[in-house]
């Protein structure tokens, strides 16, 4: 239930602020939403982890996937790929594959 509440709040906020605001603050928003799911409190049990993942996926789909145009979706893709690269660098696995 907690998941559903924050899901509704985030989506309502972004829809109210509009696509231009989202485009401007894309990196901050995506980083913030993804950090929510990495919080240890969001995944106390396996079921909680699955629900949190689903909620965050839904938030991203409703905001990035629906509100933004094609050009902004490209920048979203760049932001997401840089997040993935950063995470893999932090656990020291990225250089290993490229080499």
């Amino acid at each position: 239930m907690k998941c559903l509440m924050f899901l509704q709040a985030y989506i309502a906020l972004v829809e109210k602020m509009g696509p231009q605001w989202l485009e401007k603050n894309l990196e901050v928003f995506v980083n913030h939403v993804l950090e929510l799911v990495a919080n240890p409190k969001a995944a106390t049990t396996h079921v909680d982890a699955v629900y949190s993942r689903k909620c965050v996926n839904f938030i991203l789909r409703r905001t990035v996937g629906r509100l933004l145009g094609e050009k902004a979706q490209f920048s979203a893709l760049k932001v997401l790929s840089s997040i993935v690269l950063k995470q893999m660098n932090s656990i020291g696995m990225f250089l290993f594959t490229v080499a």
Partner: protein
Amino acid sequence: MTLKSEKSSFFYFSIVSNILILFSNFPDFNPENAKECNQETIFNQHLLVCALQEISALFIGLGTSIHHLVGDSSSGLLNGLFSVLIHPCVATRLSGAWALRSLCVALPSEAHKCVERCVGAFDLMKASPDAVAGYAAALAAILGAVRQMPLGIPYATGKVWKMLSIGF
């Protein structure tokens, strides 16, 4: 399922529900290799899974127009997707494989390159079970997506696949 009678369908249903009950009673939620990776990696796997799922959805939505993003080596998109395949957690590896599958469906010209890269990495990293599982998942995902690609894959690539699976 359509060929079976209703009675055998019910029987099948009871078997599947028994399996579900059996597995849902396990108390631990940590991945099977929790000892090898630290706590941060375990929690960050959820972040990676969400990011990769969104990347997959964006790939499918944008279609062939992603070609300049994939071709641009400075963005590191392909390198990022391939590096996820050796992550210690299973969920992340599978999401990485799914993202590669979506990439190949959106941009069929990349399928052959991805397969070659996977096969090369497969040979190079035979020693690591995580890497073998990740690259095998990626190969299986791309192979499953071939039916959605209008051009398919070269005949020889299928043979390489088969030899690889026999080798293991």
